């Protein structure tokens, strides 16, 4: 079975190269004036198609994954293993009545889902999917990504404000506070990668992770600062995209739908899709910055965009696992977490990254182990101290109970 797997991977890599060459050849047949526009149209179409089908797949995976964790089957009636369930959901969303509250601000109410959706698709353009497969190869790709992603944060507040509903407003207020607070740890965590790689271009960052230690990869996540940075990035990413345990803006059991309460039908579907696209975008960025992008996990396997998507889906599965396990945090605890805990740790991570970089000259045997211990302690000890201080200041601790009689 392993042999057939390897053969399939090599065959696929060959096909991928062939596909790239075919595309180039096809585009060169067109007159030069049309070439740019044709490239853009093809790229946009392919990207939207790929991510829309990934969205459909991950809604299904989420429902089945959550179901299995809860000792029940997920949807399995529509199509084999429920594979046509997203199609049924799509038809349902399209045919629902579009209700707009009477006193709502019509223009803002209409624009909010679009404001969520469009900037996130922009941010897909800079992610490197394969070796020469970057739709938009910018020198400051990371900056562009964060700029586009932040533009979509306004949507939650627009939705909350325009619905003229107290629950929506509460949800909107929480959303804007949460998203702005968690931008800081997100950006500073990725700053450590920029510092070490020396460039903000995402394609270059992936190429710099194309190094091997014997047959094992030398991705950024396999360094102490990369590991810590990856963890911090993922926590901040969960908060940015309103995923459990940070889904207060749409806290289903407290404020019903949060900022999404007054949306129905296709607008709700666009919000939902926007949330998932946000998840794909930050997962894609995490894969690019820390997990080696399109690099294969073993040195003798060819690089391919399939590795990128495989790692992306693995991260999405982690998101789903976390959603099924953890309860929600409260809004003031969320703010505490962002400002008093995550942000200082990301700043400290910058120093640890510098420490790792400057001790790279220790080439004596055992030097690597020493570097690891030093850098890991430099970040783990403050983390533990801070955590204990936080728990103790609020007097949170497991308790022992006494019995009467």
């Amino acid at each position, binding site marked *: 079975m392993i042999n057939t797997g390897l053969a399939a991977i090599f065959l696929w890599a060959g096909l991928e190269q062939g596909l790239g060459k075919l595309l180039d050849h096809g585009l060169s047949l067109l007159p030069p004036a049309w070439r740019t526009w044709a490239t853009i149209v093809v790229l946009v179409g392919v990207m939207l198609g790929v991510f829309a089908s990934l969205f459909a797949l991950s809604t299904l995976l989420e429902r089945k994954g959550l179901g299995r964790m809860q000792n029940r089957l997920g949807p399995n009636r529509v199509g084999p293993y429920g594979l046509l369930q997203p199609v049924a959901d799509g038809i349902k969303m399209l045919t629902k009545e579009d209700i707009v509250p009477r006193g709502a601000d019509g223009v803002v109410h209409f624009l909010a889902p679009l404001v969520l959706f469009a900037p996130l698709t922009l941010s897909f353009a800079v992610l490197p999917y394969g070796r020469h497969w970057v739709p938009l190869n910018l020198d400051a790709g990371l900056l562009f990504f964060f700029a586009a992603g932040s533009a979509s944060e306004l949507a939650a507040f627009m939705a909350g404000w325009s619905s003229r509903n107290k629950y929506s407003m509460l949800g909107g207020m929480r959303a804007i506070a949460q998203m702005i607070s968690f931008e800081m740890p997100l950006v500073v965590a990725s700053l450590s990668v920029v510092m070490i790689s020396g460039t903000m271009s995402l394609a270059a960052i992936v190429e710099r992770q194309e190094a091997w230690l014997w047959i094992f990869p030398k991705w950024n996540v396999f360094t102490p600062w990369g590991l810590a940075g990856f963890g911090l990035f993922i926590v901040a990413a969960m908060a940015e995209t309103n995923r459990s345990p940070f889904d207060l803006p749409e806290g289903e059991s407290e404020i019903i739908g949060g900022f999404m309460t007054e949306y129905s039908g296709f607008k709700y579907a666009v919000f939902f899709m926007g949330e998932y696209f946000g998840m794909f975008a930050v997962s894609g960025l995490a894969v690019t910055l820390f997990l080696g992008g399109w690099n294969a996990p073993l040195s003798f396997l060819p690089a391919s965009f399939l590795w990128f998507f495989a790692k992306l889906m693995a991260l999405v599965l982690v998101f789903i696992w976390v959603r099924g396990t953890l309860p929600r945090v409260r809004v003031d605890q969320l703010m505490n977490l962002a400002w008093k805990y995550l942000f200082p740790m990301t700043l400290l991570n910058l120093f640890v990254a510098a420490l790792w970089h400057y001790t790279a000259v220790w080439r004596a045997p055992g030097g690597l182990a020493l570097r690891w211990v030093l850098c890991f302690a430099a970040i783990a000890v403050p983390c533990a101290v801070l955590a204990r201080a936080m728990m103790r200041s609020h007097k949170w601790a*497991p308790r022992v109970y006494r019995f009467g009689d």
Partner: protein
Amino acid sequence: MADIGMESAVGISAAGDGAGPGYRLLAKESPEEEGRFLEISMGPQHPSTHGVFRMDVLLDGETVVRLKPVFGYLHRNHEKIAEGTTYLGSMPYTDRLDYFNSMTNNWAYALAVEKLAGISVPERAEYIRVITAEMTRLQNHATLMGFLLQDLGAMGTPLMYAFREREKILDLFEAVSGSRMMCNYMRFGGCRVDLPSGWLEETVRLVDEFPGFLDEFEALLAENEILMARLQGVGVLSAALAVNAGVTGPMLRASGVNYDIRKVDHYGIYDRFKFRVPLGAHGDCYDRLMLRLLEMRESIKILKQALKQIPSGPVIDPKVKIRNFKPKPGEAYGRIEGPKWELGFYLMSDGSASPYRYRVRPPSLINLTVLEDLCIGQKVADVVVILGSVDIVLGEVDR
């Protein structure tokens, strides 16, 4: 997916005390307050209010300033209907009071009537009553913990585990009484029918497997940092307030007061079993939740002892009449330590086939009277958590 009923914020009271659209139910004390505070109706349709229950909450940002519970949406005239039905005819209606715990509701009512008419109960029936009551307590506490965690946002995973265990208990109830939830099993002078063959072995197997589920649940709950942060220090109930307000049961014991009716009244045959009563020290939501887990362990102890000691014999006193049951004139109050605290029935008889006055002491309602005191100063998200830890069932609050 959050496509649940849309809640408009300008709430018109459905309980009938509205004076037209825009009627404000929480009077503000000054015009300045009018602009500062946000009034929300966590209305009868809400995913977390455990039934048709409404709370009018006055918020300053996210902090609760005032709270007023509004109920009556499920009022079904239970007490008045009982004055027109026979004593036995009210028994199926008591199932539907606290619809999670029908066996203990039945027992409390049967206890009250047995006190009124001076009926004694055979041994085997007493043991069956204890066994079914403790099983009811197990499934009630498991359900409550599951629902509380669902309200906290754990997306239903602990709820599904709790319901998985609850199904096993309900299957046993169906095997003995015929119905999973509306059991109608206790009669005046014992139980309706004897246990079917194989039931005791099934129950022994369930009791042996249950601690495994409790350990799993504790692993999910007890040391989870997010839960500790959400529940500790939230909704603190002082012992003095609890005693003054008439709060009973796990809420009272979480505040440190040692009062369990099974130990105080010695009703049934509870003094034959060795079990302890867990007490909390802080009186917050975390204590209330963990107490219920500990009480489940104590219930398992009682079940093990009862299942070993159960004798054979008749399950009902044959002298008690089913039709034309007319107890002597008098009054009686029968109470038990139900899973949701002290459930009492007050009966007054005038010698006829229907009671002259029939009153239910609804524990959920009485525990709800302290809700405002618990919630003031907490955040909106905590209101839902506190309500979940008070553990109300609307069938009992409204009767």
